[in-house]
């Protein structure tokens, strides 16, 4: 087998394995988790009928989505109406391509495409996600979806700025945009949220924790806004916009929007984990070169971290009320944007001063 063929086969295996066997089931179980956790937070029991503790509920949901009537209203712009759900789902899943979800397994690096502009790729693809929503809102040709689409578009553009600026300190520190390098650096010098972990005595690490924590907070909040999650879920604010941009959608097309939102949540968490929480690294666990069992453990650790972040996503959703739209925009432009900007200077100053 020549190198090209084996490369293609291994890449395909990774894509199929990670997208179809891990991400998509995770998406459907994220929906289950959302229902279960929200129920427990609100002193209810949540889904508990299909299977033990309702564990087969996602399968029942999927069947329901597939069997519902796929209704296309007469007043919509057909082509774009059909295009929009695909555009909402694809970017959310594509971003996972550059995220290292494990160390190595049988000597194969556990990342689909290790390109040298990793994090920019993520931002670029994520910025395309807005098209699905905007087009859905426009093609539906009715007022609520339109308002939802416009809101979501301006929201995503606003928060992309803070998103991009918040990660700059990390790359100032590492000097490389490759996500595998980011993880490698964190293994050597401690996770980004604990930059002092590598060398306890060095005051630089302790000082660096300040900009890193600010970055982490701004980035995490911007991810909330990018994925349209509460408290920033204005595009679909059901109390004022019915269902927002997917008001006119039914059946599987609605499901694509719905699952796209959760897929975006998962990839967003994956980016947070990779950039700030050490990726697949867990203190004391060696990487995959010490045996395939450790490779598997690394992958498991990565997804366990994602699951923990998903819990926080859900927890926040069922605690905080929604922002008003002007508050949201003010927060994005006046508050987070400035903080992220100042933070870059702070990090740069610390890095030059201690010459890390």
């Amino acid at each position, binding site marked *: 087998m020549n190198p090209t063929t084996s490369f293609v086969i291994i890449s395909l295996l990774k894509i199929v394995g990670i997208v179809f066997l891990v991400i998509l089931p995770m998406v459907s179980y994220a929906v289950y988790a959302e229902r279960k956790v929200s129920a427990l937070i609100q002193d209810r029991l949540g889904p508990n009928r299909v299977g033990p503790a309702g564990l087969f509920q996602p399968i029942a949901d999927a069947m329901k989505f597939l069997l519902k009537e796929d209704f296309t209203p007469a007043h919509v712009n057909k082509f774009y109406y059909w295009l929009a759900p695909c555009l909402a789902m694809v970017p959310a899943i594509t971003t996972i391509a550059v995220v290292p979800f494990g160390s190595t397994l049988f000597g194969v690096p556990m990342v689909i495409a290790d390109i040298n502009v990793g994090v920019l790729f993520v931002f670029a693809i994520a910025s395309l996600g*807005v*098209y699905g929503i905007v087009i859905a809102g*426009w093609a539906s040709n009715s007022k609520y979806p339109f308002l939802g689409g*416009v809101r979501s*578009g301006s929201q*995503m*553009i606003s928060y992309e700025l803070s998103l991009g600026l918040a990660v700059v300190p990390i790359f100032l520190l590492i000097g*490389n*945009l490759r996500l595998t390098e980011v993880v490698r650096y964190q293994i050597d010098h401690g996770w980004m949220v604990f930059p002092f972990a590598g060398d306890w005595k060095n005051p630089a690490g302790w000082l660096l924790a300040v900009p890193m924590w600010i970055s982490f907070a701004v980035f995490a909040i911007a991810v909330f806004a990018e994925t349209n999650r509460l408290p920033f879920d204005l595009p679909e604010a059901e109390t004022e916009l019915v269902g927002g941009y997917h008001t006119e959608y039914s059946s599987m097309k609605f499901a694509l929007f719905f699952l796209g939102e959760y897929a975006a949540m998962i990839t967003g968490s994956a980016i947070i984990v990779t950039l700030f929480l050490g990726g697949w690294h867990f203190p004391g666990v060696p990487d995959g070169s010490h045996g395939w069992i450790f490779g598997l453990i690394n992958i498991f650790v990565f997804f366990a971290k994602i699951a923990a972040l998903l819990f926080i996503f859900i927890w926040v959703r069922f605690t905080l009320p929604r922002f008003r739209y002007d508050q949201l925009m003010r927060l994005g432009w006046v508050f987070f944007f400035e903080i992220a900007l100042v933070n870059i200077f702070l990090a740069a100053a610390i890095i030059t001063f201690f010459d890390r």
Partner: protein
Amino acid sequence: MPSFLFWLFAIVMLVFGALVVINRNPIASALSLVVCFLGLSALFMALDAFFIGIIQVLVYAGAVMVLFLFIIMLLDLRAEERRKMNWFAFVGGFLVALSLLVQILAVIGSTRMAKQTFPPLASPHADDVRNVGLVLFGNYNLPFQVIAVLILVATIGVIVLSKRQLR
């Protein structure tokens, strides 16, 4: 890069570039332009210029075109769709474009420079982000700063203009 991929993306670019002009619906035009940008970025990536390719998507497809789309949607340009085609202008424009194309082909075909083949890049996996940064802030630092000031002035101008209109 396999040449069929080059042809694929080149054709995608050309077709959607043409669609930008042909489409009567402004939204469809804008979206065709997005696809065109994506094809362009794929071509950049094929040349191992990942940074430029990604920036192409991030800035043009991800931000500029979204704003365009926004404006088009808010203006609700239905009139454009209903307007009759002006065949005289259509044929004239087509002829101008054609003559320009012929001219360009003639000029390029007649110089020897167009026939040279470039040597492959020193290392195809060069850290192009770092290289772009070094060149931009080293060799071209002054022009870069001048452009930055220019953009700042333009931004301030826009704000002043829009504020005045409000009053």
